[in-house]
């Protein structure tokens, strides 16, 4: 038997890692992956709470998160490709002109 709070703490750690990654990583793709990491952390808490409240809608939410994450990654990666074409760098510190 594992207390639910452990799951939540794990999810929190993943989320915090994601935020930290966003803050410290320079590669735009890695930053994007950090977002995915945060989403995964959130998903874990969704599933954990679903178990806590015996409500399957928590799991359904995970699907929506996944779909949105998929859409987001498709568009995001396309944007990254576009940025790379014009800037020829993936370093976010060098992409700070607020325009393509």
């Amino acid at each position, binding site marked *: *038997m594992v207390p639910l709070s452990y799951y939540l703490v794990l999810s929190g750690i993943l989320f915090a890692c*994601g935020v930290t990654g966003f803050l410290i990583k320079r590669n735009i793709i890695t930053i994007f992956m950090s977002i995915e990491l945060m989403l995964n952390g959130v998903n874990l808490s969704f599933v954990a709470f679903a178990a806590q409240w015996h409500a399957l809608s928590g799991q359904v939410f995970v699907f929506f998160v996944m779909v949105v994450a998929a859409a987001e990654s498709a568009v995001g990666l396309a944007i990254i490709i576009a940025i790379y074409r014009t800037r020829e760098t993936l370093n976010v510190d060098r992409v700070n002109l607020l325009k393509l």
Partner: protein
Amino acid sequence: MLHLIVFSAFGLICVAGAVNLLVQRHPINSALSLVVVMGSLAVEYLLLGAEFVAAVQVIVYAGAIMVLFVFVIMLLNAGEEERTKGSRVAMLFGIPGVLIGSVLVAWVLLEHSVTDSVAVGALPGPPKVIGWLLFHDFLLPFEVTSVLVLIAIMGAVVLASHPESKQPDKREG
């Protein structure tokens, strides 16, 4: 007990993968770390009983989204990360903010949590029930997300397609 062991093992793998994602300087290593995180998360889902979620997690996240990431990394031939010092704000405010926030949340969860313990497979999410929920209770969100995905596909095509006509003097080869 076994439950706790399995949970802790995969939880540790999870955290290790996440930390490795941060530590690694090459994006492809980060990506593979993330795949590891996702895979072990799938196991955690299985522990919670969400078998369908676990399977979809592997298929969609690890099998599709992360492949896309790897593909882009390979396509752009992304090298090791530059260690530029672009943002003092992120270091001065962001990192302490993250630390404070996560410590606070963890403290509250562990000290003031009113949540129960969960058994293995506490809430089985059989595909049939999930499907029923998706197509009945969540039909509208489902359709909306389908439209969202369609838009995302078109957006991705538009963004990534090479605007040849606009840049006739683009260096080729």
